[in-house]
């Protein structure tokens, strides 16, 4: 029934049916713009409960989460994206070299994928679980080695190509009955309802003579698309990435800064298979080598602008050599492979099952294209407004230091879906500010914590003065040996509740 009603022309004929359903109080349409009303407006505007602008990883995850919870699956959801989305597209061939855009997804993000039924698709494609993380410093002996065993988990995360994550979510999207893909279509403008804070006063004054408001927009927002179409929405979700158009159309301000650095991404082949996320802090910034399955690994190298440009354009062989130098040779000597020979035994601090320092694999060759992007920290002053919520990079973009960017976004999607479900269960208007503020309060705290941690780490590791480098070394050593502290840091990085 609902797909038919989304086309205005068909809808007009269905007016009586809609009214009928309305009268029968169809159990299918709890909080929906009921057919009779949507059509009686005659504006030709398609009515939705939620319009998600941006079908990227985070927006798609939200739509999937809404579609798979019994409390929200009857909501009419539109996903708008400027690019064409083909849910039936085949998964990338695992024998090909992986894409350079990858994400390190945490166990809690994996749970979201499981909940929405998208994880099995990811598992059928290339994905690289990693059970160890090793972080070390180029300026001294400090290193941290985390193991999944330290937190009684089997893996610390999975490295997955963004296109695989996207494809898995898009497949699920197309399966939920009340979710509609509207693409390619860009958002041109949005009409927000009259300020809901003061609307009652205004209405009483304006309409005290008994003329109830007859405009078709009701209390909803209207999203005007580049295709000329207009979508009515109880709730508009801005999931349109770091340069969010929705955010600027809503007049929400951001705070943030550029790090004056670029992140370079590349795919490489290593001399051996591994299941460790390696990260070395260099004077210019951190370099990460992530397992991608088989002999493939992904490189995320944050460095100065000029260095990044140079790395991006140099020949494959030079690039491979540069990575090897940066990982293994340059700067200070490697930490000894067993710290117990270096530090006095401190049994009361607890040991680590991950063992001592391990040298990273050697890069044999670089494959495919390389790309770089500017590093910045951006945080929206507000995530919500009446009938608006921002999620993912639209609300915050972080330094990609710990691969947390998309995980924070998945956390937003999860939290917003839960708040909407809670709202439906208590009969609230899902676009009402009071409800959306619950989402904002929950996620702001979580995101700010992570952003501060990443920003702090970036600044700490960027400093090259001797005392800071010394403290950093000492800090890393202590973290390595203070197992409880380490566990807490790890659970944070894994997107879990701190382990006690």
């Amino acid at each position, binding site marked *: 029934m609902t797909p038919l009603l989304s086309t205005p022309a068909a809808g007009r004929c269905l007016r009586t049916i809609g009214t009928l359903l*309305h009268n029968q*109080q169809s*159990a299918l*349409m*709890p*909080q*929906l*713009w*009921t057919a*009779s*009303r*949507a059509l009686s407006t005659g504006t030709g505007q398609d009515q939705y409960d939620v319009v998600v602008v941006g079908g990227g990883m985070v927006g798609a995850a939200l739509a999937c989460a809404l579609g798979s*919870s*019994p*409390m*929200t699956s*009857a909501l009419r959801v539109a996903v708008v994206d400027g690019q064409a989305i083909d849910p039936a597209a085949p998964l990338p061939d695992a024998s090909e070299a992986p894409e350079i855009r990858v994400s390190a997804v945490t166990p809690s993000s994996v749970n979201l994928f499981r909940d929405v039924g998208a994880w099995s698709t990811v598992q059928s494609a290339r994905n690289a679980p990693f059970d160890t993380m090793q972080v070390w410093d180029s300026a001294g002996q400090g290193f941290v080695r985390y193991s999944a065993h330290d937190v009684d988990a089997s893996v610390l995360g999975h490295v997955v190509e963004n296109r695989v994550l996207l494809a898995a979510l898009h497949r699920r999207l197309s399966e939920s009955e009340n979710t509609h893909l509207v693409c390619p279509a860009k958002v041109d403008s949005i009409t927000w309802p009259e300020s*809901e*804070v*003061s*609307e*009652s*006063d205004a*209405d*009483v004054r304006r*309409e*005290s003579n008994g003329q*109830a*408001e007859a405009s078709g927009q*009701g*209390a909803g927002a209207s999203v005007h698309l580049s295709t000329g179409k207009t979508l009515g929405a109880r709730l508009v979700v801005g999931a349109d990435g770091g340069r969010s158009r929705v955010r600027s159309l809503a007049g929400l301000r951001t705070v943030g800064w550029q790090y004056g650095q670029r992140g370079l991404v590349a795919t490489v082949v290593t001399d051996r298979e591994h299941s460790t996320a390696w990260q070395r802090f260099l004077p210019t910034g951190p370099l990460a080598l992530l397992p991608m399955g088989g002999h493939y690994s992904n490189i995320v190298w944050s460095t100065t602008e000029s260095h990044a440009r140079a790395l991006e354009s140099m020949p494959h062989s030079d690039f491979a050599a540069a990575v090897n130098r940066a990982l293994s040779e340059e700067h200070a000597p490697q930490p000894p492979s067993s710290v117990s020979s270096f530090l006095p035994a401190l049994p009361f601090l607890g040991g680590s099952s991950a063992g001592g320092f391990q040298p990273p694999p050697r890069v044999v060759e670089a494959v495919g294209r390389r790309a770089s992007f500017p590093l910045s920290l951006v945080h929206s002053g507000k995530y919500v407004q009446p009938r608006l919520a921002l999620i993912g990079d639209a609300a915050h973009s972080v330094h990609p230091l710990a691969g947390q960017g998309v995980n924070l976004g998945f956390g937003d999607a999860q939290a917003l879906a839960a708040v909407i*479900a*809670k*709202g*439906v*269960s*208590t*009969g*609230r*208007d899902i676009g*009402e*500010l*009071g409800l959306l503020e*619950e989402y904002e*309060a929950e996620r702001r705290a979580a995101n700010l914590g992570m952003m501060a941690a990443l920003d702090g780490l970036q600044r700490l590791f960027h400093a090259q003065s001797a005392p800071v480098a010394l403290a950093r070394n000492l800090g890393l050593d202590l973290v390595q040996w203070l197992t409880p502290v380490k566990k807490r840091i790890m659970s944070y990085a894994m997107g879990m509740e701190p382990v006690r």
Partner: protein
Amino acid sequence: MERQLFYSLFRVSRISSILEQTQRSSQSLPPGASAVLAIAAHAYSGAAAPGKHCAVSDPGSCLTPLSDANQRCQVNQSKKQEDISIPTALSPRSFHHGGALCFSTGARPNHLENHKDFKLGESGRSSAETPSTSGRTSEGTERHQPQKASSPSGKSQSKSSIDAGEVAKFAAMADSWWDYHGDFAPLHKMNPVRCAFIRSALCHHFGRDARNPAPLQGLTILDVGCGGGLLCEPLARMGATVTGVDATAVNIEVAKLHAAKDPAIANTEYEATTAEALVAEGRQFDAVMALEVVEHVADPLGFCRSLGQLCRTAGGVFMSTINRTPRAYALAIGAAEYVLRWVPRGTHDWSRFVTPEELALALDRAGLEVEELAGMVCNPLTRSWSLAEDTGVNYILFAKKIH
């Protein structure tokens, strides 16, 4: 799981005679003296053992019906076993019950008939100003002569149980009903918790599937004292056919205008009338709501009777209000109105607050039996509300119609 529920098995487990004296006298004390008493009340509630059968859960989540069922079983069991104590904030009045005040959903609370001190306002300001030894109403007499006692159920609105002064107070505030950050912000914050309780109790009572986003389809609900429609709208979204009535015409206008904006709830009916007038018309509903109303009503007993009469045989009544404890005074009036300014000054009059025991008695006399009772507590830091076993300040109950 959506709420913490416990059935109407009240038991005053321990009575401290010293506290009894203090609290009895507190009824006529000026506000300034209440701080001391609040401390005393806290000391007492700290000593009382919490009801052990009351599981706490997330009020907002409705997605795990299995555990809901489990919890029900658990509570039902405990009901059979014996009782659930009200652990905190015993009201001044409850001390006059003397010893164990206990009745179960199965057995009629006959011994309450002998409770001599129970008296719900014959005049507008009865409770606090009437010494506890005077003005008693004989339960027995009143039960057998219900017509006399429920005199307000007349034809004209002038005989309404709503006090004229109270009506004026609310008309002045009507404009701000739907401002989430305005005068009614606390009500907006508390509303989802009330809705969660109502949803759960109705699903249980009428055998509805709590996983359904709109489980109240086909139920008719009357909201007495609907104000700007804060409760009507969510109930309509949950599928119910809702009628909201309010004695203040301005509120009804605000409610109508607001509901007209949202097609999903546009079929909600609003009428400027009173419960008593609807009784006279012979109207009946599956469920009748009177939330945060009884404390503004001049004749609570007559009001409860009207609610009972508006309720179908298999239906039930929901009521919520503020308990009459020193802590409620300190929080609801002292803190909320004067310090934090959550609600406009003058909204509440402490003497009109009603204890759960008193309300249960009044409902009992109106042919309604309390099935479920929960406290609603506000975290002062986050200002978020949740259902809890502490009924010492705000509480909500569901009573089913038995005759």
